């Protein structure tokens, strides 16, 4: 068993005919991902990277027996693309890479998500990878190494930084999930941690959070109560001043002092998850936990 994606996943790419969609479809296939179809309105009948394209997600899912979709659709249309994917029962995972989707659109997608049994990862995320089996999204496959540490992060490049450090110290990864840096996201830290807790291939989890919101505090409460798999934490944005948005739409410390790096660090540490000051310290902590 692995988390969310494995070598048997059958993947649709929405927006496969666009520049990003095409490039990353090729990368995913090269990595070994089973990309079985593309879906782009008006482009049905074409072929991209050797993969047949359909006009609708439903058609693609039915014809190619797909269970997963990756969304590379531009922000103005990405909310609609998510709705389309969530409306297809066969799909149990939708990974949305697109950055910059209007928050009100995401709020409606999130509302729709509650009516389904599917997982939505993202938006504005690097994707999901089970090293050696399959990757969904834009993560650079070459830095990952198959192993037993799970990783969940709000930031793409920070994920790469930590994974690179893990790999260089000979610590492989079971699955890495980039959950995205937007104010509203589908799969939360808590849901990702629950998946790792149930995964017999994961012996420890690295959780990379950042300022803004209260997801990390909720995750800490979950760790405290339910997790038997040890967790090592990292929180970005200690030096961020209140009221300033630090790149990610979600990364803003509110004026009233919630969502600070310190409150997140304190919550994780009191839940028994050590928080490293630097990415290298995170890897030290993982070594201790294993």
């Amino acid at each position, binding site marked *: 068993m692995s988390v969310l994606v494995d070598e048997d996943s059958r993947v649709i790419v929405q927006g496969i005919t666009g520049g990003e969609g095409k490039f990353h479809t090729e990368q995913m296939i090269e990595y070994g991902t089973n990309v079985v179809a593309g879906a782009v309105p008006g482009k049905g009948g074409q072929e991209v990277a050797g993969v047949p394209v359909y006009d609708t997600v439903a058609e693609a899912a039915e014809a190619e027996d797909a269970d997963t979709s990756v969304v590379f659709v531009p*922000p*103005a249309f990405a909310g609609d693309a998510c709705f389309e994917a969530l409306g297809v029962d066969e799909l149990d995972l939708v990974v949305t890479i697109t*950055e*910059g*989707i*209007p*928050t*009100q*659109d*995401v*709020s*409606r997608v*999130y*509302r*729709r998500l509650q009516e389904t049994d599917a997982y939505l990862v993202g938006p504005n995320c*690097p994707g999901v990878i089970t090293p050696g089996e399959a990757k969904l999204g*834009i*993560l*650079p496959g070459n*830095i990952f190494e198959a192993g037993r540490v799970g990783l969940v992060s*709000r*930031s*793409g*490049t*920070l*994920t*790469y*930084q930590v994974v*690179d450090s893990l790999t260089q110290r000979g610590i492989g990864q079971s699955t890495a999930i980039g959950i995205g*840096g937007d*104010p*509203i996201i589908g799969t939360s830290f808590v849901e990702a941690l629950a998946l790792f807790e149930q995964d017999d291939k994961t012996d420890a989890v690295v959780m*990379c959070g*950042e*300022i803004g*919101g*209260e*997801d990390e505090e909720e995750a800490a409460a979950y760790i405290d109560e339910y997790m038997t798999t040890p967790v090592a934490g*990292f929180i*970005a*944005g*200690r*030096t*961020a*001043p209140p009221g*300033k*948005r*630090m*790149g*990610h739409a*979600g*990364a803003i410390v*509110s*004026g*009233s002092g919630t969502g600070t*790096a310190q409150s997140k660090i304190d919550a994780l540490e009191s839940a028994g998850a050590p928080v490293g*000051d*630097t*990415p*290298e310290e995170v890897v030290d902590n993982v070594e201790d936990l294993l």
Partner: protein
Amino acid sequence: MRLHEYQAKQVFSDAGIPTPASELAGTVDEAVAAAEEIGYPVAIKAQVHVGGRGKAGGIKLVDDADEAEEAAEDILGMDLKGYTVDRVLVEEAVDFVNELYVGVTMDRGEGKPVAMVSTRGGVNIEEVAEEDPDAIAREHIDPAFGMHPYQARKAVYDAGVDREIARDVASVLTTLYQLWDDRDGADAEINPLMVTSDDDVIAADAVFNVDEDALFRQPELQEMEEEGEFAESELDQKADEYGFDYVRLSGNVGIIGNGAGLVMTTLDLVDHYGGEPANFLDVGGGAKADRIANALDMVFSDENVDSVVFNIFGGITRGDEVAKGINQALEQFDEIPKPVVVRLAGTNWEEGMEILNEDLVTVEKTLESAVQRAVDYAEEVEA
């Protein structure tokens, strides 16, 4: 993106929310003329994006032309928390008996909008939220259905608003929600919503923050943003022009990186190694050489910067493009203005290292050593 008060009032007023008579003025003469036309007393209010304008002397009440002239002279050109005031709103002073708060925002934890009402308006609502959260009535809205009128009424009753004005306040809240929904609001607030002795309600201040990501479908608000840029600093204007996520901070180590989480981590490491970050600058994903050169230009333009650290972990972004951009930006100088430390990892980093002109920069292999080196350089300059 935050609209100026005068712009937000225009948007609210167009939607049917009562606002005081007002006029924008850029000179003392214009301000006095506007005051004469509106009729005294009037308030003269600085139009800059800072909170607490009143306490900082950016809002003055005046009763005649002499006072209006004096106040406009004081406020126009003044420095308000780093912003130079070059426009004021001249506004009818409303005689009120009560001040309320009305707002709509996205509750990110719940993933849905929330409408808020409080009878403790006219003060810093964040403080109220912290000291006495029950003083703010909250009603979550299902984004699939929008706000029903009963929900607006419920919020108003829960807040304990007087019966005489409850209908009007509920109507303002309904309109505010609709506006927030139609115009891709992030936060919409009226604080205070003044209640007059005749039981009329009127929006004495107006805040409207628009979701930047939705500006593509809000052309009118996009225009307002451009028109409102007069109060931005030179660096902010440059960041807008180049399209960077850039935040100015108080230190002297300039930071450029890709990806918000990694850039924040770089800032934190600068602090960890005893330095002080000068800025947050995220070049974003897939940056090409020109964009990298623009980023260096931005950070060099900040006179507080003593050294620069470049931290790129390529996914979509390619190391060779980054190296080209750094060369391009630095080769134009006879002498490099500030020492630059470069750390490249990820996609095409080896190609990047071959291209990078190592006579112009200091190369470090790891994130930690790069940050340490940049902090050392900044300390040397300061010493």
